[in-house]
């Protein structure tokens, strides 16, 4: 299956064409084609994953692949443990020359390695679930078939991007995915805001794509080929000049910032929520936005050398990741729209992944990508289910939700699991992956980023609790009678909830299960990264911070108490309390410093800056371009260039007019001019000839 993994992207592509042609006339108007195709791809992806695991296990002398996995998960003898012999497991590549221009060949092909297999599995799974989910969510939509056609096209292009073995194919997939997001965001393009959001999304990502394009060109001329494996190999061996690598990685980072909504090009993501929720779930949570991170992971050697990540110095990548975490989390606080909260949360989590890559935590970042896809998709689909059957398609938590716990138990519990996973509480997936990133940051002497990570974790936990409270607890503020969503919606939620729980175990470092690392981390052409040992203190600290976040938010929202009750229940707080005798002083600290600040100034300020400064800047660029365009057209084009040409024509006309006066009509005046010229010319000839 590995060798012909190209089937996986092909199936959705075929279903796209089929739906376009015959979709309207099918009984379920194209839905069955979409679901079927993606389902088949999912199965193929699992088979591919299985074969890849077999390949890795076989190579590392382990016994049969899956059983090893089985034992690992059930916590049997905790796996043979210890470092597996570093055995190079080459990715399966297959391709042929696509076209040839001058002495340069462009080939198309697939390169399957751990990362690809993981991505295939995630993309096909989430896409399949979204397909199933949309059959009922999008029921009765005017352009139902059109929606499914594009979903298939999106899945096909995402898969094309993932399996790409050369940068050009990656760029093709990258842009096609951008196109699908443009069309899907603008799915209900009747209302102007939707259309604007779609255009804004496409343009901002397009700005990033310029960086990607130039990065690819620089890499092509530096490494002499588009082939990713070759580029990585040359980067690792240091055959490419350092300056070239710096330039290339800077440009590629531009692409990542654009696509994965990192600071400052993140403003399009919240607006993209204008699209239908399944779209937000699939594209703006699980798959497309992580394309940037995937690019970072896939071409990691370039970034590793380019930003000299192992040197411990603060590099740009980590910095951007960090800032995005803080900004995303901060902004999530002040949103009343549940999807906007989740959007900012996605931005923040993507910040984690980019920071992870930035600090050398390749496995952790990819693992976080893996887990995040599940619980973020779950949260979005949950939000969708809430709006679908709870608040009549409104996403405003304050106005139309609250107290849905009683009416929508399945959605409630799945949403709870998702939030806990996102907050990073112990048994759930989020904890393992986020903790891994913080641990690596800590060990690679990136203490600054460790702190940033912790603050982020705290804020994530806080705003998720707020969100859960506003949606599910308190009285029902909306009108109409909320009811549980139909099975087609709840089943995907349950499946995703399951994954949100179990996914973490694949790489639970606490339980020495390193399966994920073994399977996914590329061994060929990859910089040697040291993997953090699990140490209890760090994990505990992270967990504590998360719990603290939940408690703070819980106290404020659930009990509507001031913060005074907190110290009684929390051991750490009690230790702190005994330390700070003046209780009043602590409460004051809570009142205005932490809770006040969180709810008050910082959040609102950051939202204000976000809207005015950053979003304003991005819109400003657009309107600025229009003004410059107007100037260029009116003044430069019409006046200067065109004016000159017309001026020339008019002046020739005028000289023509003047000459007409010379033709006076008086014959003797003609004779005068005749003899005058004879005399003058004779004089000239006489003077010049001797």
């Amino acid at each position, binding site marked *: 299956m590995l060798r012909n993994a190209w089937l996986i992207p092909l199936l959705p592509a075929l279903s796209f064409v089929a739906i376009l042609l015959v979709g309207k006339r099918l009984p379920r108007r194209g839905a069955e084609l979409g679901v079927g195709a993606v389902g088949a791809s999912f199965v193929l992806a699992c088979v591919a994953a299985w074969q890849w695991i077999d390949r890795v296990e076989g190579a590392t002398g382990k016994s049969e692949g899956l059983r090893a996995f089985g034992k690992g998960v059930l916590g049997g003898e905790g796996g043979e443990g210890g470092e597996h012999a570093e055995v190079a497991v080459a990715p399966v590549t297959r391709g042929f020359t*696509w*076209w*040839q*221009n*001058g*002495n*340069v060949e462009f080939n198309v092909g697939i390169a399957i390695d751990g990362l690809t297999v993981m991505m295939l599995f995630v993309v096909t799974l989430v896409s399949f679930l979204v397909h199933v989910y949309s059959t009922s969510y999008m029921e009765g939509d005017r352009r139902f078939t059109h929606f499914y056609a594009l979903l298939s096209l999106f899945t096909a292009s995402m898969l094309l991007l993932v399996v790409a073995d050369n940068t050009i194919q990656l*760029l*093709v997939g990258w*842009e*096609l995915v951008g*196109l699908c997001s*443009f*069309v899907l965001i*603008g799915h209900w*393009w*009747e209302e*102007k805001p939707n*259309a*604007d959001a*779609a*255009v804004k999304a*496409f*343009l901002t990502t*397009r*700005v990033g*794509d*310029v960086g990607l*394009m*130039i990065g690819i*060109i*620089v890499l*092509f*001329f530096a490494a002499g080929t588009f082939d990713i494996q070759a580029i990585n190999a040359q980067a690792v061996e240091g055959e490419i000049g350092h300056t070239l690598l710096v330039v290339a990685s800077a440009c590629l980072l531009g692409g990542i910032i654009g696509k994965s909504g990192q600071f400052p090009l993140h403003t399009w993501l919240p607006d993209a929520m204008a699209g239908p929720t399944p779209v937000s779930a699939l594209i703006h949570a699980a798959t497309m936005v992580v394309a940037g991170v995937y690019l970072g992971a896939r071409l990691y050697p370039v970034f590793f050398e380019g930003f000299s990540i192992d040197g411990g110095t603060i590099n740009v990548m980590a910095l951007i990741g960090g800032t995005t975490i803080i900004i995303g989390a901060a902004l999530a606080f002040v949103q009343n729209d549940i999807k906007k909260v989740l959007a900012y949360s996605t931005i923040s989590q993507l910040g984690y992944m980019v920071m992870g890559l930035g600090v050398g935590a390749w496995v952790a970042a990819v693992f976080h990508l893996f887990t995040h896809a599940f619980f973020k998709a779950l949260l979005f689909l949950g939000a969708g289910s809430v709006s679908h059957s709870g608040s009549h398609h409104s996403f405003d938590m304050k106005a139309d939700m609250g107290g849905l716990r009683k009416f929508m138990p399945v959605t409630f519990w799945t949403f709870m699991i998702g939030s806990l996973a996102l907050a990073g509480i112990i048994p759930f997936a989020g904890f393992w992956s986020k903790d891994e990133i913080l641990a690596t940051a800590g060990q690679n002497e990136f203490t600054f980023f460790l702190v940033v990570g912790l603050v982020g974790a705290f804020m994530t936990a806080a705003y998720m609790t707020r969100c859960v409270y506003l949606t599910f607890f308190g009285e029902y503020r909306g009108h109409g009678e909320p009811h549980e969503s139909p099975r087609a919606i709840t089943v995907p939620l349950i499946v995703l909830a399951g994954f949100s729980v179990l996914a973490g175990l694949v790489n639970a470092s606490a339980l020495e299960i390193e399966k994920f690392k073994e399977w996914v981390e590329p061994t060929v052409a990859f910089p040697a990264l040291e993997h953090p040992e699990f140490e209890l203190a760090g994990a505990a600290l992270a967990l504590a911070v998360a719990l603290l976040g939940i408690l703070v938010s819980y106290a404020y929202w659930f009990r509507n108490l001031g913060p005074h009750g907190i110290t009684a229940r929390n051991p750490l707080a009690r230790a702190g309390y005994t330390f700070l005798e003046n209780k009043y002083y602590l409460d004051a600290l809570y009142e205005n410093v932490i809770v006040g600040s969180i709810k008050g100034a910082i959040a609102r300020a950051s939202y204000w800056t976000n809207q005015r400064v950053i979003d304003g800047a991005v819109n400003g660029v*657009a309107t600025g*371009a*229009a003004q*410059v*365009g*107007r*100037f*260029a*057209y*009116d003044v*430069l*084009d019409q006046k200067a*260039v*065109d004016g000159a*040409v017309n001026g020339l*024509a008019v002046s020739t006309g005028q000289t023509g007019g003047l000459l007409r006066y010379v033709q006076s009509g008086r014959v003797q005046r003609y004779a005068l001019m005749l003899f005058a010229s004879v005399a003058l010319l004779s004089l000239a000839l006489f003077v010049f000839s001797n």
Partner: protein
Amino acid sequence: MDWFDSGWGLTLAIFLPVAGMVVVLAIPKAQEQAIKIVALLTTLATLAAGVGLLVRFDYDDTGDLQFEANKSWIDVIQSRYHIGIDGIALPLLLLSMVVTVACVIYSWDHFPAPHNPKGFLALTLLLETGMNGTFAAQDLILFFIFFELVLLPMFFMIGVWGGPNRVYASIKFFLFTLFGSALMLLSFLALFFLTEPHTFDIPTLAEAAGEGLVGSTQNLIFLGLFLGFAIKVPMFPFHTWLPDAHTEAPTVGSVILAAVLLKLGTYGFVRIALPVLPQAAEDWAPWIGLLAVIGIIYGALCCLAQRDMKRLIAFSSVAHMGFVMLGIATLTDFGINAAVFGMVAHGLITGMLFFLAGSVQERYNTRELSRLGGLLVQAPRLGWILGFCAMASLGLPGLAGFWGEFPAILSAYEPLEGLPVETFRTFMVFAAIGTVLAAGYLLWMFQRVAFGEPKPEFESAHIHDVHAPEWIAWTPLLLLIVALGVYPNLLFKITDGAVTGVADGVAKAIGG
């Protein structure tokens, strides 16, 4: 069928339209149906000849001339009737034939304002001869004749069937191009006299590669050629005729103008200017690159300021031709290949855009973006085709536009050695920024026209969706855009040999 290979096939392809024109002129004005059928049959026959050429074309040495004919024409001035096509000329020739067939079908039942199908179709056929001839000519004077032959029909087409301000636009169009071609003729003559065995023959001149000429004269001659072709492309300072010509031209007129006529300029650079005067080409390349990049950015900026849909598309073709010229300016085979591909892609895509603009105008009889809206609501298929073409035009990978722009930007990174590398890399960055601007104005236009609700003015108007002649005319073009986008090797296989020949010639002459 060797008569076909020995030059008769190509002569047929060139002069069949004129024969059709004569027949059309013979038919009395009243029998419009007969006229239309004759015109359609002629263009289809020409296309058949074109396909014949394609089939019998020998693909493993696309470099040298095929279907050659070399008869005496005016031996007083040593100018011969020397025609032949290679890898570069064949695709453009086919492009011109396909576009003309599409135009004839498109205007089947709605001819522009002063209803005179006889005159209109006669001019279109004459236009096709001019275009086919220019691409097949291998003799400077023959090239000049066909190059100028194209002017007359387009002048009358814009002038008679144009919009309100048509007279100014048609005369401006003609004067610009006439001025350019007058100087070009001077350069041809200079070339004729300064080459050792006085000849107008392009292949012989290309072999000589201007080695008899000292640098300064080469540059002077190149100046004439540059002006002649740059005005036609159009490049930055000489482009002001294009928006006016397009805004006023009838739909079919601007389709042919955009799809094929602009390519005469760039084809001229690749066929004549570069191979014949390589040293001068090397000196001029940075300047051409600079003007190309200015064209890209300037064109895009002007697009953002447009209120008329057709004028916006016109400026967009100034920007796109900037990419083509950037590809040529690098003087590498990689760049020129991208340029030739860009020519064909731009021809198909902008041709389609102008068809769509024409259809929109025919339905809403306005092109004001402010008054248009909600096209997807009223004519969904038309709306989505417009979306498809806008995406192709902004260079979305997977469609033809991308393989024209991206390799051009890629080639700008590494121009022929001897050319200033840093400047070309700055050009590359600006060109990449150009793609964003392109995305900007095209999506902005698409959003204004297609998305949203139809304006109250047209709320109740019955807007019919795409009907038969439009479908028949457009499907081949759309299929070609997708085919070239998905599998670009269709075209690169043809052009690669020929372009490598040209590029090696230039490199050898400069290097040697």
